[in-house]
């Protein structure tokens, strides 16, 4: 394993400390239990948004703490859900008398630990479960779909609504709505290497890809021969559109997310493929985001996320945001 690391056990602590220092103008980092939180608390009472999950997906979630997005984020070990005491400590630090809204990706570990965290706090709270990954069939009998790159779109838009002083109830309803309007799917060309493991999670031969991969390098729909960017785009967007069933002339946000090891050049090429295909289907890409936002360590590959836009979602996407990883209009 070749990484910038001192002792593998300290990788998270050192990285979080560096993260805190590099963005000390807007966020702060508390250790043991670990969480990232906003430095300059808003003047007004607002619903406090707390997310979190296993580390290794940076900038998700710590990179999205700040004005217009999260109030706090709880990073777990690499690819392991955070522990309930992190959520408890974060909640006690950032609550502002309007309740706590947890934003959780749909994985057993995250759900259980966030539930236990919620049990430990006294503040009123609600939870949004994000499950945008259409690679995995949904069914009432199973855990359902995974939460992936669409999570940051929920965090951005609900974060914006919360900033207006909206009620917990309304933030929860809006977040569930954005989640329902959002679908994602990705493909991996290489594995990631969990630092503690020291070797790649899986092996793909030189002409293979994992179609519908998860953001932890979990297997997806199938392993198959690599295909052209256009073919991949077709297959992924077909699945996404089947799920979202957009209207004619539907306006959408198109997010091309890199998993960490794929150059920007390719992500923009993928965006071009996606935009062209959607245009052909009379779907209007009126918002875009291209880059490494929900990563899987150094995994090469990427995903498409489509969010159907209505006036509210568009407004809350466009509004000012100031976080380490996403910043505009301020």
């Amino acid at each position: 394993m070749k990484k910038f690391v001192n002792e593998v056990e300290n990788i998270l602590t050192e990285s979080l400390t560096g993260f805190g220092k590099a963005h000390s103008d807007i966020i702060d980092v508390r250790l043991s239990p670990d969480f990232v939180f906003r430095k300059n608390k808003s003047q007004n009472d607002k619903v406090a948004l707390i997310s979190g999950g296993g580390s290794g997906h940076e900038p998700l979630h710590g990179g999205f703490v700040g004005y217009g997005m999260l109030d706090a984020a709880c990073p777990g070990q690499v690819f392991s859900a955070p522990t309930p005491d992190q959520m408890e400590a974060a909640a006690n630090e950032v609550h502002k008398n309007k309740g706590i809204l947890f934003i959780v990706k749909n994985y057993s570990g995250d759900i259980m630990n966030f539930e236990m965290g919620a049990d430990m706090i006294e503040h009123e709270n609600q939870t949004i479960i994000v499950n945008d990954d259409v690679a995995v069939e949904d069914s009432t009998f199973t855990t359902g779909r995974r939460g992936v790159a669409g999570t940051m779109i929920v965090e951005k838009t609900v974060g914006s609504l919360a900033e207006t002083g909206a009620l917990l109830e309304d933030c929860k309803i809006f977040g569930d709505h954005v989640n329902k309007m959002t679908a994602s799917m990705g493909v991996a060309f290489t594995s990631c290497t969990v630092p503690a493991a020291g070797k790649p999670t899986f092996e793909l031969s030189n002409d293979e890809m994992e179609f519908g991969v998860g953001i932890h390098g979990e297997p997806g729909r199938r392993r198959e021969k690599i295909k052209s960017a256009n073919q991949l785009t077709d297959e992924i967007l077909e699945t996404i559109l089947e799920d979202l069933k957009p209207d004619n002339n539907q306006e959408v946000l198109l997010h091309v997310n890199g998993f960490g090891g794929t150059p920007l050049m390719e992500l923009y090429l993928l965006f071009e493929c996606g935009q062209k295909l959607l245009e052909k289907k009379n779907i209007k890409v009126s918002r875009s985001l291209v880059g490494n936002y929900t990563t899987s360590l150094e995994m090469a590959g990427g995903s498409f996320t489509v969010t159907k836009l209505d006036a509210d979602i568009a407004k809350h996407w466009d509004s000012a945001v100031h976080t380490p990883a996403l910043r505009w209009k301020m």
Partner: protein
Amino acid sequence: MNGDQIFNSINNIQIIIKNHKEEIEKLDQEIGDGDHIFNILRGLDEILNLKEELLDKPVNHIFKQLGMKIMTTVGGSSGALFATLLIGMSKKYSSDLSDLNNLSEMFFEGVQSMKKRGKADVGEKTMLDVLIPVSNNLIELQNETDFEKVANNINNVAKDGMLSTKDIIATKGRASFLGERAKGHIDPGARSSQLAIEAICNQFINK
């Protein structure tokens, strides 16, 4: 039951898990995200660090503290579940009961809490495919005096449960995302749970 015995068992569990490190790591890489072995090892390290502090404490207190430690240091599905198991167990200890009676009652309670926490039951390709049959079996055998027989029984039930996960299509946990593709793979949590039980049973089996 006392602190010495409890920590002795944890020691044995650590040994058996370490001996199967690569295997468990691989299981979670195949149908999960590969962190299970590290979660388990971190948890074992952390609770063994409590040995001196807890050795002489009451049994229910020990279980509670072990559960809290796991809850706050492990994370992931297994952290939440094993913490729930131990904290659940801590609630049922009674100084009036025999060790086997205590263990059966405590374990049953712990597993019930896990079922609630995980919203899962037998047949969903999780560690509960090991732990639920074991807890039922323990209840049945709680008045047995031949500990070796109990241990052998439990051991077999755990192994059967573990092996049964191989051909289940998962409906809970990460493996559920895989559908058909998870078939043929043993659940990592089932394997680590079964090994832990084996470590404890081995203490009572004269080999």
